[in-house]
């Protein structure tokens, strides 16, 4: 293996590039780009299997959502393997996962959501109003605008009107959801 590949200097940058491509979906992070930017001294033939190895390791860690114990055990095993990684590289990978874990996990969660997500919510309450031309008194009304959208698609805005009764009906349902969540989150 080329000496440059064994070093850990550029590895951090490589992992960032891999994350951009594999998890965050940023286009244009090619093998050639990574090689020329981070490992210019290394030939494409030598770089390719190295990149595949690092990508495989990162994907395994992310797929299993490893905690720090699992991570240490996994990386240690990788250092003992034939054609595995060096302890310095293991340290770089470990540091990388610790600082990017949350963001990568969020990306994976978003990737697996195929229904619309709630992107935004705004509301106002319109108060009582009286009309001098009509004896009707309007009751207070809440106007709510929901911004929903699927991953990578434009938002749809849904505007809803609620009177006090309806607000309380919805509130009751939401408290049922809350209760279900509490039950789910209770330690077994």
């Amino acid at each position, binding site marked *: 293996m080329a000496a440059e590949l064994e070093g850990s200097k550029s590895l951090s940058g490589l992992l960032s590039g891999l994350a951009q491509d594999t998890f965050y979906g940023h286009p244009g992070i090619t093998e050639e780009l990574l090689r020329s930017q981070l490992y210019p001294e290394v030939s494409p033939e030598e770089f390719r299997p190295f990149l595949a190895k690092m990508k495989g390791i990162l994907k395994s860690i992310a797929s299993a959502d490893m905690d720090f114990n699992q991570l240490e055990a996994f990386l240690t095993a990788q250092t003992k393997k034939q054609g595995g990684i060096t302890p310095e590289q293991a340290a770089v990978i470990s540091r990388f996962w610790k600082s990017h874990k949350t963001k990568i996990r969020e990306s994976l969660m978003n990737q697996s959501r195929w229904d619309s997500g709630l992107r935004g919510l705004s509301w106002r309450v319109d108060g009582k109003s009286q009309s001098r031309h009509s004896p009707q008194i309007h009751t*207070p009304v809440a106007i709510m605008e929901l911004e929903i959208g699927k991953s990578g698609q434009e938002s749809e805005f849904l505007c809803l009107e609620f009177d006090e009764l309806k*607000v309380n009906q919805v509130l009751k349902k939401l408290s049922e959801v809350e209760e279900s969540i509490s039950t789910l989150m209770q330690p077994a």
Partner: protein
Amino acid sequence: MVGSLNRVMEESGEPQLDAKSKVTNQLIDFQWKLGMAVSSDSCRSLKYPYVAVMLKVADHSGQVKNKSFEMTIPQFQNFYRQFKEIAAIIETV
């Protein structure tokens, strides 16, 4: 989740036109589901709970549509909190 609060309480002595700048819908039904995403082809260990909501809404003409979306638990907590705020305000108006 980015949520902006816009609180405008209008009181007017003049007749209010029914025309609104946005078309508003009435909520006919609110269905919910608490789900747990366990695993996916890109992540074997997803393990995240989510709240899926199905709204049945009717526009001014009476046409009924279904709108569904998902929320993470923190998003749901925020949604719930804002509804409670609305309830508190609408009660006092």
